[in-house]
C-alpha cells in the first residue's frame, strides 16, 4: 500500500509542472523512500553539455603564465605572458577565450582545474566512452545522462519529446538511456519525414502512421507510436521553436548555430532540459595554435552570445552549461608544434546560477605522474555528482557508481 502511494505522488509531480510540481517535489524529497528532487532545486533547471571532442589542450586553455616551466616546455606554442587574459598572478585564459572571459568577469563562469580520473586512458574512443558513461573501469551500456533520465522518468514519460536532445547526427554515449528516448537533431530541417516535392506521399505517410494498428508482435504498437512521433515531431518541433526568437547574434560557425538552436529548444514550448552540443577537432597533434585558438574562440564567443540570448529571455539563471573533453594533452609541445594525448584538463561551468570563480588547483608542470603527464586533482565524477545533486536535484548514487564529494560551484 505504502509503495503504491509513493508511486502515485511521483506521477503527479511529473504531470503537474510549475510551482505545484516544485512544492510536491519538495514534499517528496522529504521522504527517504522516494528518490526525487532535492529541496531548493528548481525542477525546470536546464543542463547544456558541451563536448570538446578530440582532447583539448588544457595548458593553452588556462595558461600558467607565471610558471617558467610552461614557457620552457612550449617554446613555440606557448602563449606569451602579455597576451594571456589574466585571472590571477598565476593563471589566465588563452586570448581566444575573450568571450568566456567576459562571462567570467560577470561571475558566471566556474573554472574547475585539473579534472581527470585514475589510470587515464589515452585512446579517443575509450576515453570518450569513459567520460560519457562515467565508468573508467568497465564499459557501461548507458550514459551518465541516460541513467539520470531513466531514474528521473522511471514512473512517467517526459512531457516533451524533446526533454533531452542531442544536437548532431547521432546520439552520444552520454545520452544512451534504457527507456527514455533522446532524439538526435542534426538540424531543424533534417528532423522531418522528407519526400521532396511529393507532398501527396508525405500526406499519405501521415495517414498510414496515424491509422497504424497493433498486431501480434509487441513491437508493432511501439514502432507505430514512434513512427507517429517521428512523423509529426519535426513539424511540432519547427512550430514550437518558431515561437522563440533568438535575441543575440550568433556567429555563422556550426557550434554557435547549435547554441542558437539550443536556446530555441530551451526557451520555447519544446522545453528541453538536457541539451548536448559538440565542438570537435581539438586533436591538435600539429600546428596547434591556429586550430585550438579558432575553436576556443568559437567556444567563448558562442557561450557569450548564448547567455546574452538567454538573459534577454530571462532564462540565463535557469541554464547551466558544462564543458568536457576526453583528455588533456601532454605537457611539452611535440616536434610538429602540436601536443599529443595527455591527461587532466580544466572544465568550465557557465550560467547565471553558477558561483563563478576558480575551483581546484592548477596541476603542477613538474610534479607529474608516472607517464610524465599532469596529475588530476578533481575526479570528473565529482563534477557530475555536483551537477546531478545541486543542479538537477537528484541523488548522485542513482547515476554514479561510488560516492564523490560535491564542489561548491552551484
Amino acid at each position, binding site marked *: 500500500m505504502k509503495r503504491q502511494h509513493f508511486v502515485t505522488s511521483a506521477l503527479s509531480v511529473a504531470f503537474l509542472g510549475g510551482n505545484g510540481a516544485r512544492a510536491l517535489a519538495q514534499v517528496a524529497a522529504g521522504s527517504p523512500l522516494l528518490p526525487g528532487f532535492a529541496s531548493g532545486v528548481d525542477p525546470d533547471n536546464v543542463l547544456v553539455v558541451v563536448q570538446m571532442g578530440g582532447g583539448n589542450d588544457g595548458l593553452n586553455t588556462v595558461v600558467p603564465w607565471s610558471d617558467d616551466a610552461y614557457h620552457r616546455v612550449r617554446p613555440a606554442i606557448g602563449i606569451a605572458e602579455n597576451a594571456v587574459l589574466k585571472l590571477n598572478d598565476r593563471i589566465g585564459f588563452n586570448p581566444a577565450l575573450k568571450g568566456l572571459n567576459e562571462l567570467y568577469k560577470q561571475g558566471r563562469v566556474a573554472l574547475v582545474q585539473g579534472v581527470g580520473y585514475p589510470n587515464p586512458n589515452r585512446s579517443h574512443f575509450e576515453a570518450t566512452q569513459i567520460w560519457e558513461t562515467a565508468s573508467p573501469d568497465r564499459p557501461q551500456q548507458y550514459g551518465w545522462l541516460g541513467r539520470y533520465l531513466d531514474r528521473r522518468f522511471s514512473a512517467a514519460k517526459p512531457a516533451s519529446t524533446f526533454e533531452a536532445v542531442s544536437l548532431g*547526427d547521432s546520439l552520444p554515449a552520454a545520452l544512451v538511456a534504457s527507456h527514455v528516448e533522446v532524439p538526435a537533431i542534426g538540424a531543424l530541417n533534417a528532423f522531418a*519525414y522528407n519526400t521532396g516535392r511529393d507532398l501527396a506521399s508525405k500526406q499519405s505517410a501521415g495517414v498510414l502512421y496515424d491509422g497504424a494498428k497493433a498486431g501480434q508482435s509487441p513491437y508493432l504498437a511501439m514502432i507505430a507510436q514512434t513512427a507517429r512521433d517521428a512523423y509529426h515531431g519535426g513539424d511540432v518541433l519547427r512550430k514550437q521553436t518558431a515561437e522563440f526568437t533568438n535575441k543575440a547574434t550568433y556567429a555563422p560557425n556550426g557550434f554557435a548555430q547549435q547554441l542558437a538552436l539550443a536556446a530555441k529548444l530551451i526557451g520555447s514550448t519544446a522545453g528541453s532540459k538536457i541539451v548536448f552540443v559538440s565542438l570537435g577537432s581539438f586533436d591538435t597533434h600539429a600546428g596547434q595554435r591556429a586550430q585550438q585558438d579558432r575553436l576556443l574562440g568559437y567556444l567563448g564567443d558562442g557561450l557569450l552570445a548564448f547567455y546574452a540570448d538567454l538573459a534577454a529571455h530571462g532564462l540565463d539563471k535557469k541554464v547551466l552549461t558544462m564543458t568536457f573533453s576526453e583528455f588533456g594533452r601532454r605537457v611539452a609541445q611535440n616536434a610538429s608544434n602540436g601536443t599529443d594525448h595527455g591527461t587532466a584538463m580544466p572544465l568550465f561551468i557557465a550560467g547565471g546560477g553558477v558561483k563563478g570563480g576558480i575551483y581546484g588547483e592548477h596541476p603542477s608542470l613538474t610534479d607529474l605522474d608516472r607517464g610524465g603527464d599532469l596529475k588530476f586533482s578533481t575526479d570528473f565524477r565529482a563534477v557530475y555528482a555536483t551537477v546531478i545533486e545541486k543542479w538537477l536535484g537528484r541523488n548522485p548514487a542513482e547515476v554514479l557508481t561510488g560516492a564523490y564529494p560535491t564542489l561548491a560551484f552551484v
Partner: protein
Amino acid sequence: MLPPKIDTSTDPQVGFRPPGTLDAPGALLPYAGRFGRRQAAHLLRRAGFGGSEADVARLASLGMQGAVDALLHPAAPDADLPSYPDVTSLYDPKKARQTAQLWWLDRMLRTNRPLDEKMTLFWHGHFATSIQKVAPPQMVAQVNLFRQFGLGRFPALLSAVTRDPAMLIWLDNRANAKAHPNENYAREVMELFALGLGAYTEDDVKEAARAFTGWTIDKNQQAVFVPARHDDGIKTVLGKSGRLDADDVVAIVVSQPVHQRFLAHKLLEFFVYSDPEPELIEALAQVYALGGFDVAKAVGTILRSDVFFSPRAYRAIPKSPIELALGTLRYIGAQTVPPNLPYQLARMGQEPLNPPSVKGWDGGPTWINTSTLLARFNFVNALVAQTAPAKNGQAAIPAPNVAPDEIVRRVGMDPDKIAQTIVGGVVQDDVTSDVRSTLVAYLNSQTPSAMAQNPLPFGPENYQDKIRGALALTLNLPVNQLD
C-alpha cells in the same frame, strides 16, 4: 570493498516476448506446415538479408527442407566478389574506413551465400570490435575470420578469435604478459563472449588472463605466441586446474552448461524472438551440446523448427538498420551499395565495424526511436522515391533503382492492382485493407503541389513517380520495420 551499485529497482521492465504460449515439446521439431511465399520471405529475412520477389519465389519452390539446406550448405561457390584490397578501386582508397565498410556491405548485397554473411554479422555484434581502435585491414581480416568460422564449431571460432590481431588489439591481450597481466580479454570471454555475468568469479578472470598471456602481435600486425611472455604456471579456471593455456580455457568455458544456454539464448534472440522462454533455451542448448558445439547444427535446427515458423515468431523482431537497408536494396534489385550508406547506417544507429562498445549493439527495442526511424524513412525515400531535382538547366533525374515499368507490364495501369502487387511483394500482404486503400488513394491523388506541373489522375505522365512513391510508403510501413 565493492562500490555501491546503481539502484535500478524503480525502472520499468518492458517485455517484448510475443504473446501466446510456447509449445515446448514440439518447438524444435521440424515444421510441417505450408511453405509458401510468406514462409520463404520470413526465412530469407532471418537467415539472410531478404531478397527480390524472384529470390523469394525461388526459395519457396524448394520446400522448407530444401530451402534451409540451400542456405546452410549452398552448392554454388562463393560469388566472385572483390576482396578488400581490390575493392579500393571501386571506392575511394583515401577513405580507408568507409572503403572497408562498403566492402562488407557490398558482400551482404551481392553474396549468393546470405546465411554465411548473416552469421558474420551476428558474430561481429557478438565479438564487437571497433574500427575506432583497430585499423581497417585488421577489421576486414576479422570479418573474414567470422565468415570462415561462423558456422563451424564454437570452440574453433573462440580459439581463432583469441589469436585474431584485431581482437588482440581491441581488448589489449597484446599487452597481456606474465610480468604484467591484462585481464581485459579474459573478462570479456567470460562476461560477453561465452558465459554471461554471474557465471564466474573475479579469480576465474585473473586465472584465465594468465592462461591467455603470450599471445600478442608482431611488428607486421600478425598474431604471434611469445613463450617468454606466457605464464606456464598452474592455474585454476572454473574449478579446473593445470598448466592451462589459451585453448584449455576455451575448452573449459565451452564445457559449462551455462555457456550452452548463453549461446542458445543469443541465437534464439537473433533468429526467433525476443526474450525466449527458458524451456526453449534449454532445448536448444541441448541440441548445441549434443551436436559437439557445432553452430551450423544449432542454427539449422532453429531454421527448420516449428517455433521458427510459428505465428509467434513471424515479424516478431525489429529489423536492425543493416537488415532494413540491405533488405531494401536487395528487394529493389540494386547492384551497388550507395557510397553514403555507412553514414546513413550511422544515423539509423548501426554503423558497421563501429559498434558502440564491446557489448555490441543492444538491438531489439533500442533500434527504434524518432531519430533512427526518420533516418530509415528518409533513406528509403531518397533511394526509392525521390527524383533528383532539376537544376542548372538539367532535367530531373529519376531514382535509378526501381523499375515501375515492370509492375505496369505485369498488372497494367490499374492503381488497385498496382497497390496489391506492391504490398504483396514488399510485405507479403501483411497489412490491413485500409493500408491498401490509402496507397490507392495516393496513386490516384491529384495534389496540386505534387511532382507533376499540372495535377493529373494516375496515368502515363506520372505513373513512374507514383509507383516509386507507393513503394516507398509501403517500405516505410511499421510492419516492414519488423523481420
